[in-house]
């Protein structure tokens, strides 16, 4: 029990340390870099609009939600305090709108597409992987493995381009492409009101279809290969062989003996990936013009909306850190061996 608590506390501290470090790096970038955005802003205001130094500074303070009259250390302290409250100030591009509310609006869409895509690929991938492990002597084993290795290698945005062409551009002999691609931009069609009704949900699904498919296809290969490897090593474990010798039915062996043990190491990978794909959503969302957090980051970057940029970047980091934290805890809960102390010396 004590080791479990120590384990959790340990991971928690590491998580906080990571978030703190990233925050600090961002503060450094925004505030201390030579030609950092705040100094640049003040300069621009003074040179272009002829504002006085104090006035420009006051404006910058307001815009970046930082009190520039304070010492750097105080600014840093105040900044950290705000970050803890998830207050990243206001967006520069849409003045007066808090960064957090933009994130709150965009993040669910990314989570929705990335999450569904990942889930879809996971379900298909582990089923196929387990099947391949069982049917290692069939002709399709090398074929499926090869395709999986191919899919897991190529960049996800290239898959997105293929899908775009396949569904949205090529007419396949008919008059129109399969999907009306320009109607599918954005998260949902104009005129549909968001809410828990069928019309909206269907619409949201259709709009998210291509991103979801992209995530699913680009991840599925990895799951197949991971699950295949994991299952093969589990299948050769003594306890599985012994289960067979005990005359236990194949289905029971698959679920109680092979399944759980093979899935264990992979389940952590699932949580980790969730965090990382959110980071990788930038290009996909740009390609499909999907209004998620990735697209917002790109907009913020090109528009030099620093508060928004740092907010989104921090949220993405937190997503990764939290999901890998959860993954480790999850693993520890599922695998009784983790809790055992390793103290034996021979």
């Amino acid at each position, binding site marked *: 029990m004590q080791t479990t608590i120590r384990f959790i506390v340990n991971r928690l501290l590491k998580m906080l340390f990571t978030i703190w470090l990233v925050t600090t790096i961002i503060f450094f970038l925004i505030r201390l870099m030579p030609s950092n955005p705040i100094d640049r802003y003040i300069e621009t205001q003074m040179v272009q609009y002829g504002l006085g130094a104090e006035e420009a500074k006051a404006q910058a303070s307001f815009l970046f939600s930082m009190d520039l009259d304070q010492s750097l250390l105080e600014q840093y302290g105040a900044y950290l305090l705000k970050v803890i409250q998830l207050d990243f100030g206001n967006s520069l591009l849409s003045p007066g709108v808090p960064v957090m509310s933009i994130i709150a609006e965009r993040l669910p869409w990314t989570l929705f597409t990335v999450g569904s895509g990942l889930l879809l690929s996971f379900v298909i991938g582990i089923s196929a992987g387990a099947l391949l492990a069982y049917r290692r002597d069939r002709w399709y084993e090398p074929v499926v493995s090869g395709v999986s290795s191919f899919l897991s290698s190529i960049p996800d945005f290239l898959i997105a381009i293929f899908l775009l062409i396949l569904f949205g551009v090529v007419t396949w002999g008919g008059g129109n492409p399969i999907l009306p691609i320009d109607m599918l931009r954005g998260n949902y069609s104009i005129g549909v009101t968001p809410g828990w009704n069928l019309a909206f949900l269907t619409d949201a699904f259709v709009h998210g279809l291509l991103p979801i498919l992209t995530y699913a296809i680009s991840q599925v290969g990895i799951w197949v290969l991971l699950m295949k490897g994991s299952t093969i090593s589990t299948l050769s474990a003594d306890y599985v062989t012994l289960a067979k010798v005990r005359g236990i039915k194949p289905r029971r062996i698959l679920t109680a003996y092979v399944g759980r043990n093979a899935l264990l190491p992979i389940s952590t990978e699932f949580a980790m990936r969730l965090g990382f794909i959110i980071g990788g959503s930038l290009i996909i969302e740009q390609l499909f013009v999907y209004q998620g957090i990735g697209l917002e980051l790109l907009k913020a970057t090109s528009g030099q909306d620093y508060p928004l940029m740092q907010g989104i970047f921090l949220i993405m980091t937190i997503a990764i850190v939290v999901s890998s934290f959860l993954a480790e805890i999850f693993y520890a809960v599922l695998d009784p061996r983790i809790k055992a102390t390793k*103290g*034996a*010396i*021979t």
Partner: protein
Amino acid sequence: MKNLLEVHHLSKDFQHKRQPPVSILQEIQLQLGKGQTLCVVGESGCGKTTLGRVLAGLLPATTGTYSFLGKDVTRLSKKEKKEFRRDVQLIHQNPYESLNPTTMVFDILANPLRKHKKMKTIAELYPEVTRLLELVGLTPVSDFVDKYPSHLSGGQRQRVSIARVLAMDPKLIVVDEATSMIDTSLRINLLKTLQEIQERTNVSYFFITHDLALGRYFAQNQQLMVMYLGKIIEKGQTEELIGQPLHPYTKAILSAAAGNKGLLDESSEFETYVLGGTDIPSFTQIPQGCPLHPRCPQKIEGLCDRLRPPEIESTTGHYVACHLYRKSDSPL
């Protein structure tokens, strides 16, 4: 004759993070002369491998003294340290792990020669490598020099390990279960090779094994000692120890080994001696007093469970750590 190595009151503790130290070796006393063999027998987890590693200089002792050729190993000058390093060698248990898979047999043997005998060219090295391989019975030599370890069988690999050790001209070789992974039909040959090498080079062996019969074979007319839970509980001349075992634990393992062999070992008549309990306690819970007392059928209440038995010399050169053999006049 001066002993090659002398060990007095040597103890070794291991400490795991935030846990109390665990004593793996306690009050070890031993001597070994030049060209002699000392065999240590014990069940897995009795500390015999740790003892071997301490003697080989791979682990420092926690307390006690260890002197090699009359010099305290902990207080060697830099040059002496280098000499000690070369004089004491170790043969690992697992021949599949102890040879670098990316190095040819030739280079495995040539590397130490290049370093220590300043041989450079192949013309210089080749005769020496040939000599070493012939010494360990890997003939014809040309079949082996250009092989990678993965092409050799377990027995052949173990021979290469021995040859590599011999390239250092050691004075002491710690042999850690070197034959336990070798097939029965090949095992004796390997041991014979080791014995022949001893006759030729006057090297000493510290031979570690869990197999009493094997130890008894290898240490004929030499010294044998038995370990239990980090302590030497009995030691003496091999035939004497096997013929007249004193410690209840020695009696028990002899009885078990002989009983198991039955038909194989007809002429042997060993007293049947059974200990209570089944499992060795872990090092974190070593019983107070004599470590064997919870399992010992002859334990003396109030003595064995409180006082650690001292080392008693029952007959000349035959030592036992057991209260049963306490001389009446010796203090408690």
